[in-house]
């Protein structure tokens, strides 16, 4: 509602092709030398003071990775990546161990301020005027390869929730990390996940114990700042029996001419009756209109509904990155467990998106729901790729899939590649797909009422994605809505 208005205002203020988060922060950083070798893996592990088993785990991944080949099945095109021409570790030089937020480099604090992410708890608490009932949000801020600040830790701890950088969790809760790390996305899962296992630097660790409803939203903001640096985030979320947690990640990067690699792994584990809601607002630098620069976003995200009646819900708003290769998935193992995937994927300029989900029905009476909204503009290519499968024992498995594509202009492409495999005869899978062009008549109708062409596109698109936007936590829905309009700028004549 009001947000649509804000969307429009935002669009009006910003020039076409201007990526708002494209600035660079000037901080001194400590970097690993370029290249990837066992020594670099040892270096990263040593920088993080990791236990010996972790180093072994990484080395095993690295050896494995050397035997693997980069996947080629996705509908994306890019020149070969020189994995020896990247830095695998970069950290702001000051204060690796912070006693309080006051010790965070002021330049970094300013960066997050510019990004609109409050890191000072007192500011968050004092707030300006907050709408009634708005929840507070704990933030973990990851800058290049390290977490620079995590807010509300004390309050969360009192509730029994662990929320900290994974590097810290490796030292403070090694038994928990060791038990779950790689248990959903195995070390050898795929090329990028294996690379991540060898060199991951930071990310968030969340543990919500049995019966606890996490008292606030948790979120991580990833920022790539250094150039020629890959970011390899690793996030692990465990929800104990009957617990609930809602987590959101956001990401931005400076505007640079060379491509940068972001290869993340996210693992979620939900026990009996637990629920995890994982939302992403992905806004990595998309490259310019000619396709120069931008992030390669090669991400493996998987949730394991391990317990009976557990539930995992992925919601993503993907607007950034030069290339997106991402399939947040659910392993529906627990009886009666359910998985959801709600996605808005927008591509403009020369962006390439190949994204979707896998819903693997393994337990009995498991259900899943997929709602995907793809919007292609400019000269972009946007593919939905999904797999729904039912295991032999998945009696009563049910899936509903709806894939809608909207084309803006006639130089872009939308593709839908759904796979279905039911090995149990009782499985019921429903699939609906539509592809439409944004209607000139509808746009004119809006323009005749006083909206500019761009405002009209924003309105129509916001309507198109509404079902998914509603799945986001309220605070982020508004932000996402703005982002959608901004990323479609210049898409109409």
């Amino acid at each position, binding site marked *: *509602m009001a947000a649509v208005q804000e969307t429009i205002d935002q669009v009006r203020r910003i020039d076409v092709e201007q990526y708002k988060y494209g600035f660079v922060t000037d901080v001194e950083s400590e970097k690993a030398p370029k290249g990837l070798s066992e020594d670099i893996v040892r270096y990263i592990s040593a920088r993080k003071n990791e236990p010996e088993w972790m180093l072994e785990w990484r080395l095993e991944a690295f050896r494995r990775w050397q035997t693997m080949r980069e996947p080629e099945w996705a509908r994306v095109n890019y020149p070969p990546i020189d994995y020896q021409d990247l830095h695998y570790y970069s950290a702001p030089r000051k204060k690796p161990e912070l006693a309080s937020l006051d010790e965070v480099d002021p330049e970094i604090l300013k960066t997050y301020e510019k990004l609109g992410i409050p890191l000072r708890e007192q500011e968050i608490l004092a707030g300006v005027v907050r709408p009634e009932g708005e929840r507070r949000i704990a933030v973990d801020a990851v800058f290049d390869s390290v977490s620079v600040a995590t807010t509300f830790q004390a309050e969360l701890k009192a509730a029994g929730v662990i929320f900290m950088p994974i590097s810290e969790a490796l030292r403070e809760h090694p038994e928990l990390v060791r038990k779950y790390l790689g248990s959903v996305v195995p070390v050898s899962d795929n090329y990028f996940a294996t690379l991540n296992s060898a060199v991951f630097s930071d990310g968030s660790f969340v543990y919500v114990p049995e019966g606890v409803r996490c008292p606030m939203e948790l979120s991580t903001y990833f920022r790539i700042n250094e150039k020629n640096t890959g970011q390899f985030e690793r996030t692990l979320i465990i929800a104990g029996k009957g617990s609930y947690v809602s987590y959101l990640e956001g990401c931005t990067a400076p505007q640079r001419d060379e491509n940068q690699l972001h290869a993340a792994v996210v693992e979620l584990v939900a026990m009996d009756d637990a629920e995890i809601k994982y939302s992403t607002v992905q806004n990595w630098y998309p490259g310019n209109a000619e396709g120069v620069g931008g992030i390669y976003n090669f991400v493996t995200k998987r949730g394991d509904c391990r317990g009976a009646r557990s539930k995992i819900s992925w919601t993503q708003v993907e607007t950034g990155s030069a290339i997106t290769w991402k399939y947040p998935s659910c392993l529906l193992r627990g009886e009666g467990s359910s998985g959801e995937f709600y996605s808005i994927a927008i591509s403009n300029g020369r962006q390439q998106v190949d994204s979707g989900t896998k819903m693997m029905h393994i337990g009995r009476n498991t259900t899943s729901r997929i709602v995907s909204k793809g919007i292609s503009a400019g000269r972009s290519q946007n593919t939905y790729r999904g797999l729904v499968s039912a295991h032999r024992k998945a009696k009563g498995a049910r899936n509903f899939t709806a894939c809608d594509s909207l084309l803006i202009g006639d130089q872009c492409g939308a593709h839908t590649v759904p796979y279905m495999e039911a090995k149990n005869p009782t499985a019921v899978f429903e699939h609906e797909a539509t592809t439409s062009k944004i209607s000139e008549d509808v746009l004119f109708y809006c*323009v*005749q*009422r006083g909206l500019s062409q761009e405002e009209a596109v924003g309105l129509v698109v916001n309507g198109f994605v*509404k079902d998914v936007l509603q799945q986001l936590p309220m605070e982020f829905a508004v932000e996402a809505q703005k982002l959608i309009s901004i990323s479609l700028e210049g898409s109409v004549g």
Partner: protein
Amino acid sequence: MTALLEIRDLKAEVAGRQILNGLDLTVNKGEIHAIMGPNGAGKSTLSYVLSGKPGYTITGGEVYLNGEDLFAMEADERAAKGLFLAFQYPLEIPGVATLTFLRSALNAQRRKRGEEELSSPDLLKRVRELAKQLGIDPDMLRRPLNVGFSGGEKKRNETLQMALLEPKLCVLDETDSGLDIDALKVVANGVNQLRAPERGMIVITHYQRLLDYIVPDVVHVLAAGRIVETGGKELALELEARGYAQYQSEAA
């Protein structure tokens, strides 16, 4: 006194075909003009050319809205200057609540005119009032714009938009089409409430029926892309009796 709308020798084509062939029309403030004519005469084309729909090429003539060159303005500017077209077939926008659409439109116009935006509570109050006057179920405001609306609801919604936006010149294209007599009365009643000394209207219709309820000051016959006859409201009744055959042969 400057005319509200002045059309001089307007020529326009669509898809390479000349449809308007030198059309003249002057509408003063406070007047209601009916434009009648056979199917395919160019009535809708005129409404689209005035409102700036893409795809129509002006090949001659000029149009002034309150003395300002209409063709120098973008379509959204024309709307902000008070030109409103009630569509024959209003369009559907899935996922966009009617109220959201109304707010977006009104505030877009206000911004363009350098006016302050209307706050959400004020807007809601205003829209509710108008909806009540037009016999519109407030529940409709939450439904996506025109999606699944009946013909009558769509036309009522057009009238609601018109009432909210308070245009200076209303162009109603076949507002009566697809309406039963009861719905027609409701919509006509809504339009009549908008009659005002500062406002002009062009009511396009194929049938005389609508003009029993929205009584025009002037009636024109549009055939083959130009105004071929002009008279008082009694002309509508004559046309009803004799039909358009005469003009069609004239055009041919």
